[in-house]
């Protein structure tokens, strides 16, 4: 159990401490990080289903400039571990994921704030001409920050989380319902953040077009993307033609 707990702690640490996006970019998302936890805990099928359920409210998740409307990096592995060791079902896992992901936003904020220290350390080393030490500052201290903030709680959950399942059963129905509603509303925040981020009022009809194709005609995401790509290419070509005309074309 202790080996498994340490492995889960390391997975959770790397979900926030992205040593290289070549490997860890997908660890941000519960679907993958929770699956890894499931493998470590010897329950890959249950782990995968629970991880997918935790990922649901974060389908519209966007991070821009380091601000995040939730902390799926924590909710994914820790939520899956908690559900597996305490025997929660898939539906309860979504609820637990929403709670963990919201409460621990401050963990991410703390991580981003503490890391500022290492930049100053790196700057001192660079001023002294010590390039190797500057590089170490990029990798090592933030690992320990993430390990303390994310890894240790994950380890404790694996070791002592077993009674949580029974405790969760005693939660009044209204609390469970409340978090259920919150979980259903959460994707709206991600989608709205994206609309705000794109900030192209003239292009907003395309948002409604995507909505209409899916809701009224029942098209899948892949089908909508296919149509969207065609529309985008057509408009791009049309626009470039008109620009050419305005500037006199190739002549």
């Amino acid at each position, binding site marked *: 159990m202790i080996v498994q707990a340490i492995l889960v702690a390391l997975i959770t640490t790397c979900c926030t401490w992205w040593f290289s996006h070549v490997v860890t970019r997908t660890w941000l998302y519960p679907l993958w990080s929770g699956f890894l936890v499931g493998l470590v805990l010897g329950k890959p099928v249950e782990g995968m289903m629970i991880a997918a359920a935790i990922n649901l409210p974060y389908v519209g998740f966007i991070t821009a400039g*380091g601000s995040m409307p939730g902390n799926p990096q924590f909710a994914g592995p820790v939520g899956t571990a908690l559900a597996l060791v305490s025997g929660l079902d898939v539906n309860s896992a979504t609820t637990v994921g929403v709670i963990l992901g919201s409460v621990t936003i401050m963990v991410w904020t703390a991580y981003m704030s503490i890391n500022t220290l290492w930049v100053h350390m790196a700057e001192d080393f660079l001023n002294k001409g010590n390039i190797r030490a500057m590089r170490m500052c990029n990798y090592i201290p933030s690992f320990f920050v993430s390990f303390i903030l994310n890894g240790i709680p994950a380890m404790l959950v694996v070791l002592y989380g077993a009674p949580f399942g029974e405790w969760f059963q005693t939660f009044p129905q209204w609390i469970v319902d409340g978090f259920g509603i919150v979980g259903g509303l959460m994707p709206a925040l991600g989608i709205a953040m994206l609309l705000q981020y794109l900030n192209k009022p003239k292009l907003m009809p395309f948002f409604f077009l995507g909505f209409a194709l899916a809701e009224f005609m029942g098209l899948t995401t892949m089908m909508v993307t296919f149509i969207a790509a065609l529309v985008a290419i057509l408009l791009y070509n049309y626009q470039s033609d008109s620009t050419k005309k305005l500037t006199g074309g190739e002549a």
Partner: protein
Amino acid sequence: MALSKKTLVKNWLLTYSSETCYNYERLQGLGNTNAFVPVIRELYPEDKQAEELKKYLVFYNTEPSWMGTIINGITCAMEEKRAEGADISADDIMLMRSSLMGPMAGIGDTVSQSIAYPILAGICIQLALAGNFAGPIIFDVGYKILQLTCGYNMYMLGYKKGRDAIVDLLQSGIINRVLDAVSIVGLMVVGCMTVGNVKVDLSWLEFDWTNELGTVSLNLQTGVFDALLPGLLPLLVVLGTWALLSKKQVKPLTMVLIIFLVGFALVGIKALMGLY
């Protein structure tokens, strides 16, 4: 002196560690300083290396994995010329980087977070919930193949075109056209995501009136919202949230609190109606 292919590949791969020491003060500044060590080591004698690296330890933030790699490609082309003695100052390089980081973040975040991720997640979550191992595996492998293919090609494009790429991008307005095209795909995918992911269920809001003619019942969900337009309620929630974010400048974290308040207010109404 041209940089060796090995150094370029190293620089490209190290770009993926841009966010290892992600922080609020300089965001990806330290990560990029680390990424340029191989480049500077190849171009400069040892006593000049630290000095040349300092220009990277500044505030820097872009999308580092899919599209933003083009900036580091362009930077390498400029560093090469600078080391040969061309008239390129450290400030020129910094200016190019800071003027491109915003637009490239716009394109990169749209491609990765509003197109690739929702599509992959949408498909793979359903597979995983059905107990199919293809779910998480397609998600991880598919995401990485797309990310590395885009990242490598953008990096090499930036390196080959060098400074011309910036002139092309910024002066011809091409970057805005690309951003528009990518935004169109992003917006349509996001519009499609509203369906099925945002869940608002008010079907418990049912009112019955009994008079001498019999009982009339009105269900707010099926009788009003769904009757007006299918999916109207989730759409209104998204638009309402968007209005709060953009018109009232509500912070995303405050928005999380508001969502919690709304969720538990609805539970409160449910309790008042005696449903518990």
